[in-house]
């Protein structure tokens, strides 16, 4: 069928069904670089982290990772500050203020790849090291971007788990944050492409918006369950808010087992449902690691040990991380939490 | 002689610069009506607000039944048995008549909840006492005419069956007939032993009703007399400090060509088939009872409620008036009956109010010519003898009469050809009244055509060249100056006799 509601219109690149990694055409460095940045090698760094928004589990986790890394590195002071709603205008103001206040490095997760570009370029022009994570900006507006997992990788993991848990010909619906959130839009588009390619019989019903609000997510998921009754076999949660809320909806509807909930989420929020066997698998990279990696990358950039053209970078306990398409650093394959291992995580 | 139930001595009160009251002593005994008299701005309402616990006196003491009292709030006053009917009506537009009457002291059920049944019945009874059987107790106050609100306000005061009943110009909004009925009510209360403080600018009432009368001038106590022992002239003397030449000085001016002609004018069902011609230099009076649709007629001509039928001609040319702005630009001015709501922007200054209707003229290319505005305001201020600190005083702070002068001035400033005045001297002291009447005939003399709506029969008869009588939204009778005597006109108003009478 036509593209799923909520997906963007950028070209998709679905992975092979059997998971053989797509041959990655190596790309030249396409990131930007700070103009006459002072030599920061080994010097103390003053870093600010401006996520999409503060006050949600996911970015609390990334911010924790950043803090951990900063502590390990010793001579880095990092703080997280940002808007209380995923609002591009406010995010820009925050970054702008920190440029003025003269930080050494900026970590960001963009609410909009293009809208954030001008202010990031301004930061580079001010000689500040800029590294993105979670949500990318235009490449030339920052130096490096730590990619938690490729969009098509996430898409594959999600769709595969869905098909596995609810059957190849299952009907399912999607609960996302808003259609304008770039990452979610990308994932949905990639999922559509991958499903068409590898699980053609999966039946996408519809996509509903639920902001980053868990009560709204719960109500939306419940409405979906009510609307489709037994026809609905699965729900895909696209955010760390939507997924637990959907699980809750399934639980309260007494549909555990008959409706599979697959989605991106943080372990803590999902534990109750995973332990109750209502949710079998939660797809997510470890956001703490994501923040941790981002911090290490920034340090490396500041020290000049990570330069354009590099193929990998050392990231503390995470070891060597690969550089992919030009100026991105891949955190690794998405992590799948299950009843067995979820207890070992706390974020 | 019985002890005063309420006694004030050496009361003083000032607002910022204005010394509204100084050294005023006053008392009232059970079973007497004590009239309070004075020019506009003399301080009557202020004194009453002191009695009502709204204003705290700066100096002086107050006693109820002999014991010293300090009213911190209207609540205290009510508790002490003082009920007040205020000059500017204080009602709740969205509540029903019954609720307005009993707000704060509604009859309760055993559960302590409001007993709606009894409340409505009580309200009914009180209104019948005021001979308003037609007034529906479930009706929203907002939909009532000025006169009916006045009735409700009075019923409200009666409902507290107070020992002291203070009435600030209660008949101002009433037609003579209604006023007479009210006076009966007041007498009844007096005979019940209620002490009544009565403010009015209508001399006739004072003499018909009061036992004693106290006069204020510019906030100062002038004196107290036994009504029996003083003449009207004497009272006026005390009030204004000079004697006034007779009222209603309608000088005969040559009636000119027709200016405003109205043919079969109707608006919905409140104004039906109104036809008349108004000539330059003429004062055409419209008499009628409350609800007779006189105001609606005016509103229709003025374009507030555009006519649903009939036509209006200015200088013989038919005009379609659909908005007040249009009417104004055609040279029609309307001095409304509800001064506070329709006439003035009370939070603004006198100057701003005076220029509101002529913004177009005092503005050059949209910009207000402040110099021009100021001088204009000063002229009008002087010409109408407004008593206030100056043109920058807020209208809110003016006394009722002075507010009315501002409204008049504002409309005369538009240099209209047709001036419609709805209750032009409602609540205005004899002095000011004379001034306004003199002004009216001066304007008429200058060829202005004046349409005067008034519920005060003497005024209508005294000022008008011709008189129309309305009832139920129709013109039921027409008289010319000589044909119009109180009896026939009054009869026509109540519809008992007359019909399309003389001329």
């Amino acid at each position: 069928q036509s593209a799923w509601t909520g997906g963007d219109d950028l070209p998709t690149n679905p992975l092979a069904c059997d998971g053989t990694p797509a041959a990655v055409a190596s790309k030249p460095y396409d990131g930007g670089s700070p103009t006459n940045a002072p030599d920061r090698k080994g010097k103390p760094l003053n870093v600010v982290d401006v996520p999409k928004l503060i006050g949600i589990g996911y970015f609390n986790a990334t911010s924790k990772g950043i803090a951990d890394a900063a502590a390990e590195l010793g001579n880095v002071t990092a703080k997280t500050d940002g808007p209380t709603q995923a609002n591009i205008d406010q995010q820009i103001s925050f970054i702008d203020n920190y440029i003025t206040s003269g930080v050494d490095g900026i970590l960001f997760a963009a609410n909009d790849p293009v809208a954030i570009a001008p202010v990031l370029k301004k930061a580079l022009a001010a000689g500040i090291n800029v590294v993105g994570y979670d949500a990318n900006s235009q490449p030339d507006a920052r130096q490096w971007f730590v990619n938690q997992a490729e969009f098509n990788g996430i898409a594959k993991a999600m769709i595969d788990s869905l098909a596995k848990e609810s059957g190849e010909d299952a009907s399912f619906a999607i609960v996302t944050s808003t259609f304008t959130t770039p990452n979610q839009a990308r994932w949905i588009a990639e999922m559509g492409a991958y499903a068409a390619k590898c699980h053609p019989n999966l039946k996408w019903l519809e996509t509903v918006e639920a902001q980053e609000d868990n009560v709204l997510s719960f109500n939306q998921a419940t409405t979906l369950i009510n609307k489709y009754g037994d026809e609905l076999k699965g729900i895909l949660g696209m955010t760390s808010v939507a997924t637990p809320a959907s699980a809750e909806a399934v639980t309260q509807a007494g549909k555990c087992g008959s409706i599979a909930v697959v989605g991106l989420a943080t372990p803590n929020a999902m534990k109750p449902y995973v332990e109750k066997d209502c949710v079998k698998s939660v797809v997510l990279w470890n956001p703490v690691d994501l923040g941790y990696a981002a911090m290490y990358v920034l340090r490396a950039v500041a020290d000049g040990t990570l330069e354009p053209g590099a193929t990998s970078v050392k990231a503390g306990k995470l070891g060597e991380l690969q550089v992919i398409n030009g100026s991105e650093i891949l955190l690794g394959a998405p992590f799948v939490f299950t009843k067995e291992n979820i207890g070992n995580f706390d974020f | 002689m019985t002890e005063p139930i309420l006694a004030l001595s050496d009361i003083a009160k000032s607002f910022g610069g204005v010394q509204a009251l100084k050294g005023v002593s006053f008392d009232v005994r059970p079973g007497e009506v004590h009239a309070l008299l004075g020019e506009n701005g003399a301080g009557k309402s202020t004194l009453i607000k002191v009695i009502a616990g709204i204003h705290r006196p700066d100096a002086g003491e107050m006693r109820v039944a002999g014991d010293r009292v300090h009213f911190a709030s209207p609540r205290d006053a009510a508790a002490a048995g003082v009920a007040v009917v205020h000059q500017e009506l204080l009602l709740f537009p969205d509540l029903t008549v019954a609720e307005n009457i009993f707000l704060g002291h509604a009859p309760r059920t055993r559960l302590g909840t409001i007993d709606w049944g009894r409340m409505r019945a009580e309200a009914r009874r009180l209104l019948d006492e005021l001979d308003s059987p037609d007034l529906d107790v479930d009706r929203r106050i907002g939909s009532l005419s000025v006169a009916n609100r006045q009735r409700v306000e009075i019923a409200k005061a009666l409902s507290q069956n107070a020992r002291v009943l203070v009435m600030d110009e209660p008949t101002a909004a009433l037609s003579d007939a209604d006023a007479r009925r009210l006076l009966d009510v007041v007498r009844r209360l007096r005979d019940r032993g209620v002490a009544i403080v009565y403010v009015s600018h209508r001399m006739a009432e004072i003499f018909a009703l009061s036992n004693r009368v106290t006069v204020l001038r510019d906030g100062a106590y002038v004196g107290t007399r036994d009504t029996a022992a003083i003449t009207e002239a004497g009272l006026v003397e005390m009030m204004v400090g000079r004697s006034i030449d007779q009222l209603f000085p309608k000088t005969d001016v040559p009636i000119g060509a027709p200016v405003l002609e109205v043919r079969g004018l109707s608006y919905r069902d409140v104004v039906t088939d109104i036809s008349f011609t108004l000539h330059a230099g003429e004062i055409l009076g419209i008499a009628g009872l409350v609800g007779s649709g006189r105001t609606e007629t005016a509103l229709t001509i003025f374009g507030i409620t555009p006519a649903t039928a009939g036509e209006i001609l200015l200088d013989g040319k038919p005009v379609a008036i659909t908005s007040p702005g249009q009417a104004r630009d055609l040279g029609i001015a309307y001095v409304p009956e509800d001064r506070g709501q329709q006439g003035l922007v009370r939070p603004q200054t006198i100057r701003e109010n005076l220029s509101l209707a002529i913004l177009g003229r005092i503005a050059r290319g949209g910009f207000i010519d402040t110099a021009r505005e100021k001088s204009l305001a000063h002229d009008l201020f002087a010409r109408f003898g407004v008593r206030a600190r100056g043109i920058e005083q807020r209208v809110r702070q003016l006394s009722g009469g002075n507010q009315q002068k501002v409204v008049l001035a504002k409309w005369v400033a538009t240099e209209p050809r047709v001036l419609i005045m709805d209750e032009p001297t409602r609540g205005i002291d004899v002095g000011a009244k004379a001034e306004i009447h003199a002004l009216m005939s001066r304007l008429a003399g200058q060829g202005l055509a004046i349409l005067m709506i008034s519920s005060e029969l003497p005024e209508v008869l005294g000022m008008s060249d011709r008189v129309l009588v309305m009832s139920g939204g129709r013109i039921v009778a027409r008289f010319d100056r000589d044909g119009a005597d109180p009896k026939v006109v009054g009869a026509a108003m109540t519809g008992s006799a007359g019909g399309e009478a003389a001329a």
Partner: protein
Amino acid sequence: MTAALRPFLRHEAILFVLLVAALFVLAGQSDRFFTIANLLNQGRLMTEIGLVALAMTFVIVTGGIDLSVGSILGLCAILLGVFWQNLGLPLPLAMGLAVLVGGVAGLVNGLIITRFRVPPLIATLATLALYRGLAEGISQARSVRGYPDWFFVLGQGDLAGVPTQLWILGLLTLVAGVVLGMTAFGRATYAIGANETAARFSGVPVDRVKIAIYTASGLVAGLAAVIFVSRVSTTRSDMGTGVELDVITAVVLGGTSIFGGRGTIIGTAIGLVLIQALKNGLALAGVKGDGTIVVIGLVLILAILASNLFSREDG
């Protein structure tokens, strides 16, 4: 200035003192605060809010309110992109049309409010949802990018060393101030806010004035949208979400009475600057965003409280 404004000039005086004090304190906190560069940059950041606040002052002076401005901003932003990319119109024309649409949206508000006598708060509460909905529906969540460079002069460029949009804001502030303070239109606006009936009975074309004001409110929202798009170089249907509260905060902080009849553009301007100065200055002083919001809330309440204590008589 007219006497009706005098007490509020008093409010503005208080506010101004507050502003100066704030500037001093903040300058003391960080040497990077009181620099030309930073201040100009702050001007750039507050332009959209500022523009909308100017019209909102008129709206609130008439005793009304316009909650739909944020949504209008979003709608116009989206349409700018749609006109330019999807309909292939020349960008200048698209810009003009976008602003025009803002005007139409405002006009609709005005008509609902005057013709159907719907209280402004309710009317604009409804169109708040409606216009945002239209933005989302029309955009289908797609954003339009890749504008030509000259377009960014408006939102990211400078003119004589001052951010381009700051010129626009300054100019319009002047115009608004003059119109409200010195013209017949302004006087009518105050009269309507203080006593609509009396204004009508005085021949003031109440409905026309109101419609004009709500239309203007929509127009500036549209203009703000164009500037905003130029500043962030993309369009999104969620642009301008929540702007209405920031704007209203600035206006009431500026001493405009929410009940109508009083208020000045000067006050609004000071209110704007004060808020922006706090946002920026506190950030530079190391206070986090959440802390800053708290301070702004407190300042709002305390400022109004202070001016109440000073001007009781005129209450």
